[in-house]
């Protein structure tokens, strides 16, 4: 993935994650950072560094005021699950891949939720399930938009 498109994509994902568009959006929107990392991992020819992903998750925790470490480890475990089934998933038809994306997003939000439950009081919210489902439903649109972004992003000269 082109470095410029990668940075721009992450800025957009962080923005989308925190936009103050009311409680419905706040509770139901998919985790755009997790979605972007999945896209990055699937479109990259080399495996991503777990440590880099952990740092991105830690930044997410600190910026959004969550328990530091919760999203960091959730993203790392999501990536580990993706790599464990990567070869099999790549052979699946696109609509079956959606189930896998849903499963990964759900695992990521559940791990983050359990981590926060360990650190302090927390309640179960169906939005965790709905956010993952919405993320999977948006996956084709999301990948299409990012493919276009990559395609149109100017190549670095030299």
């Amino acid at each position, binding site marked *: 993935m082109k470095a410029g498109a990668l940075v721009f994509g992450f800025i957009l994902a962080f923005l989308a994650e925190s936009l103050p568009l009311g409680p419905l959006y706040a509770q139901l929107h998919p985790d755009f950072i997790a979605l972007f990392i999945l896209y990055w991992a699937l479109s990259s020819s*080399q*495996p*991503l560094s777990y440590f880099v992903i952990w740092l991105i998750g830690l930044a997410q925790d*600190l*910026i959004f005021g969550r328990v530091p470490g919760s999203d960091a*480890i959730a993203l790392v475990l999501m990536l580990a699950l993706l790599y464990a089934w990567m070869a099999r998933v790549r052979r699946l038809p696109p609509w079956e891949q959606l189930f896998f994306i849903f499963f990964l997003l759900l695992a990521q939000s559940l791990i983050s939720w359990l981590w*926060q439950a360990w650190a302090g009081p927390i309640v179960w919210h169906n939005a965790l399930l709905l956010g993952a489902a919405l993320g999977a439903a948006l996956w084709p649109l999301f990948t299409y938009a990012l493919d276009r972004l990559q395609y149109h992003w100017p190549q670095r000269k030299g």
Partner: protein
Amino acid sequence: MSGLPFIRPLPSLLRVLILATLSVGVSLYSVEHPNLRQLGLNAAEPLLWLNGQLRDAWQVCSQYLQTQTTLRRENAALRQRLQVLEMENLALPVLRTENQQLLALLDSFPTAPGRVAVAQIEAQNLRSGSQQITINLGAAEGVYVGQPALAPGGVIGQVVTVSRNNARISLLSDLSSAIPAKPLGGNYPCLVEGRGDLHSLSVPFQPHATPLVPGTELVTSGLGGRFPPGLPLGVVKSVEHASNGPFARVLVRPSANLAALNTILLLWPQTRNASHS
């Protein structure tokens, strides 16, 4: 990304375990060192600034995109509201004078509500019980940790983290939020706690013979000195008595609509001496 170095000297499982241990360490460290969260808020400033620009652009666009019918309807509703408020306003000078006379008789001057500042929401985090919003005022404007935050209707929460230009407010509905309260016009002390739901708060540890009944208005009691007394918190919406439980389950509807926050008022409570001067 092809440009980044991908060093894999250790097996995957071991690397995940090391990062899990690091996460535990960071989580435990953050409990003892709350300034780590302040650091995060400082780091988020460019993002929050961008969010603010997007919000303003969205508001401008939505104003232009409204239909004539919507604007006419809104205008009619506002005119109607203005008429009602003008009628109510007529009685205010009389009531103010009467109140001052009564308070003078009681030798107790009212504590003025103090200075307020209007803030806009820059970001929100309303998931899994952690219900916080980030606003566009910070330490540069004198915002401090523990400062009361209000919205039309009443109290919405308090400031928990402050950076130079931003502050994070923990809403009443946050699971870690608890505010000393009392019924309006009464002296029965109680606590109003968040339960991770924007539309419902709770009053814990109430005996079955609690004087709180549906419809009771709860206000801040002023205990602890963080919130001035008398600010509206909510209205009791239900009191349930489970036969096997030691306490009644009291649920409260917040006075301010936490699900539709737009403009936030930050309050600098004035001390009694300051209000005299």
